[in-house]
């Protein structure tokens, strides 16, 4: 086990290193660079001279070879300095410090929400196959899968503002926006956040629910289940102890992907819900070729993915006794 972990950690470092390179270079692929995009976005064409454009490139170090730029960036990152966002003239570290906590405050409860809702429902649907409950959850599950999150967001926002006096997007109602932290403000935030969690979590819940149901159905018909039942184990203990433990494998093996998917896969939903997470920040950074900002977010996401995959592998070992290291 120890040597396995060491081997995996070394692999992970290599993978992150390669990803950091790919991320940095891919951002440069579209024609032009940040200065081009800056010049074309300047409010209604303020005059900017060729000298100024050249000087801007120099100032941002964009006139250097790409490899050189990458090298400078990655050495700084290793020292904990993610560089400067060209667009916002703020350090990337500063920007992330502002948005990452909130992003995690939304994604972690969402992840918990997804598993807490999907796994029990999946188990129920499989055990009570073709019952009214199963049909109901199947129906809801398919709707959840079919509707894009952002669309669900728009519909829920419409309903909540039109009929329940809720607010449009954001985390706080207007009266709490600038209020100091208080119990009421936390409650207000949780109310708005609950909506976000449901919207972002819906499709994940639906998918997990279906996977869980399908896997468990396969297992329930296995001979070992009959054997256990013949031995007189209570039905509930039997299901939880054997088939569920096997059926949960595919869910566990994708835990690794949920972390980055929750953070980056929610750009559009976060945009619609106006949530100040890293999603919209990344979207804008890529659009304007604000490369240190974009590359840093992508790097952090890939580190999360790699760590997530590692965790899910360890979870699998723990849950499924058939896997040996």
């Amino acid at each position, binding site marked *: 086990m120890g040597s396995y972990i060491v081997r995996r950690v070394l692999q992970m470092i290599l993978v992150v290193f390669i990803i950091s390179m790919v991320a940095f270079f891919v951002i440069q692929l*579209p*024609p*032009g660079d940040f200065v*081009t*995009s800056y*010049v*074309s*976005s*300047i*409010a*209604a*064409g*303020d*005059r*900017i*001279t*060729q*000298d*100024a*454009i*050249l*000087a*801007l490139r*120099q*100032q941002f170090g964009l006139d250097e070879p790409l490899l050189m730029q990458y090298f400078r960036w990655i050495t*700084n990152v290793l020292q904990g*300095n993610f560089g*400067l966002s060209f667009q*916002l*003239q*703020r*350090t990337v*570290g*500063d920007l992330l410090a*502002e948005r990452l906590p*909130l992003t995690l405050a939304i994604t972690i409860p969402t992840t918990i929400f997804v598993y807490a809702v999907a796994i029990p429902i999946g188990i129920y649907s499989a055990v009570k196959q073709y019952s009214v409950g199963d049909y109901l959850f199947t129906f809801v599950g398919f709707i959840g899968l079919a509707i894009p999150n952002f669309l669900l967001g728009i519909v829920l*926002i*419409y309903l909540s*503002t039109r009929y329940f006096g809720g*607010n*449009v*997007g*954001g*985390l*706080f*109602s*207007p*009266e*709490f*926006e*600038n209020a100091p932290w208080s119990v009421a403000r936390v409650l207000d935030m949780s109310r708005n956040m609950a909506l976000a969690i449901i919207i972002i979590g819906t499709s994940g819940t639906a998918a997990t629910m279906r996977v869980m149901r399908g896997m468990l159905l396969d297992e329930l018909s296995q001979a070992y289940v009959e054997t256990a039942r013949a031995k007189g184990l209570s039905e509930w203990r039997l299901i939880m102890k054997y088939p569920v433990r096997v059926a949960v494998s595919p869910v566990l093996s994708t835990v690794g992907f949920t972390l980055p998917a929750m953070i980056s896969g929610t750009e559009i939903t*976060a*945009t*619609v819900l*106006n949530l*100040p997470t890293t999603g*919209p920040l990344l979207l*804008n950074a890529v659009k304007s070729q604000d490369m240190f900002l974009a590359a840093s977010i992508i790097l952090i996401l890939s580190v999360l993915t790699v760590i997530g995959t590692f965790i899910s592998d360890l979870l699998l070992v723990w849950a499924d006794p058939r896997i040996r290291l």
Partner: protein
Amino acid sequence: MTDSVFRGSRRKFLQVSAAAAASAASGATLGFVGPAAAQGMKYSEAPELAELVAAGQLPPVEERLPAEPVVVEPMNEIGEYGGTIRTGIIQNRGFQARSSWGPEPILRIARDSSTIIPNLAESWEYTNGGKTFVLHIRPIRFSDGAPLNAACFDFWWNHVNLKTALTPSPLSQFVVAGEVPEFEVVDDYTVQWTWSKPHANLPGLLAHWVGAQIPRWLPRHYLEQYHEDFAAADALAAKVDEEGFSTWDELFNNHSAAQYMMPFQHPEQPTLLPFRLRDPMELNTLVAERNPWYWKVDPEGQQLPYIGEIVVTNFESGDVRDAAIAAGQMNWVNTDTTFTNLPLYRENAERGNYEARLWLTSRGAEHTIMLNHEVKDPVLKALFNDIRFKRAVSHAIDRQLIADVVYLGFGVPSQVQMIPGSAWRNEDWVKKDTAYDPDTANALLDEVGLSERDGNGIRLRPDGAPLVMNMDFPVDDPGSTQVGELLIELMREVGITFNIRPIAREQVRTLLDNNDMEVGIWIADKCSDTMFPHSPEWHVPMNASGGWNAWGAAYAWWRETDGEKGIEPTGDVAKVIALFEEMQVTVDEDRRHEIGTEILRLNAENLWNIGDVGEVPIPVILGTNFRNYPEQGFTSYDWLGNYQYQIEQTYFEGGEWVGEQG
């Protein structure tokens, strides 16, 4: 809300503009009364500030105000203190909110939307035969009580603008024909610049973007600690390190940054605006509060601004902001609302406690359709330079159809001339060749040698190929797409295959820079008296690297690079460029008017721009009890939003927006 109703209001609009022009000399119309009126006045302040004074946290109002505060005549009536302006921006583009807290440029544009009047500078003059521009600085105070004086300007000019580490090349707005002026401090409150030719457009520029940008570098007393010329090397290095930057210029830029023409990150950063930053943009909101050291009062001696706070919410998309408007969460959104969403705004106005007023913008026409006069295809080039061909295209456009389909029936057929109320407006030139007349168009096309057609009815070029025109435009302007789609149909009717291609803005830039554009389309803004003299982007190919003029991009490059790149202009194009160069060095107002008229006449004659419809209004969202703001006004980049109406003298009747929640 029908077309005719709007026409009626448009007439009224013109009358209002004319009245404003007639009384332009009177200070009251311009919203500005000289400081003399303040003599012997008794001053008072907002209750919140009075409390701070009573608590000993703030000096009394008499000490905070300058010796001679500026007296602002309210637009309609004296206001009352209190309330919160709630505005929204999209994707952190702060310019959408900038005129909600000023700006306070060095000079300013008066309420008539065209006259330039004093502001941070109490007066200016040209001496030395026009070659020296003298600025007399108003003795006022920053939001921390520090004085504004010539030393501030010296700091900005010598230690920021001429410091290559901070400003790679000096502000182009101060450069005349490649010459950086000589700067002198005359006395404590006077500075001057000298060129070898007059810089006649400088007052206009100082009342606009650059004039509003400079103040961020003026708080010398605050910025010196971040500047290598002043701060001790080790202390500066420690600050750079502590705030996570790698060089001192990054630190300096961060502390002098102004995103919305106001400090947006450091509340302690001194400002001259009516509001100062309280909570920087964090998560999605920013809050600005009344500047206790603001230097303007109303005629009763009450310190301005009346309104206490500004809350700016950032939205990641315009549609979500529109939803927030409809839900009654905004009381001040007006620079970039979507005209086609007018029904949505109007439908929810009552419930949302706001009004959707209709103002005008600086667009001479919604779009200019530009045929590249130096297009690489020689056959197209010959056609695009033939006035008969351009007139044919113009007559083939059914402008009423565009108005009906794209702009809910609003808008009147217009070429790219000046907006209503402009001193240069000429109705004949606005209307020239705008009649929808396919017969004339067909006759003209036959006349230029395009009478042969193929089996599909498409005209054949002299070289036998079918006539195809391709138009590229940025995908982010939905109006261009809709107009473009109608053009496909309209051009087919006169036998031209017209293709449109929405592409990324950066790609449009590349096409223009390499002269690869055939036909371009852009929003025809900047057609106002405030912009035209120094930035006639459509009427003169003068701005290559930052502009979007597609009919003469090659000429603009030639001008900008002194012939290194681009194509040398000849004939009337050379003439308008020469006229524009003359405008830049001509101080005399009468001659300036003649030059402008001549530029516009040459435009009407040559039809370099083909306009679609003009006078399409823009919805302006204002709280129902928001007062001292015009029923009909102008808003655009030309006035940095609508700062000419002076946010500091607006107020909420009753002291708070009626739609305030909670």
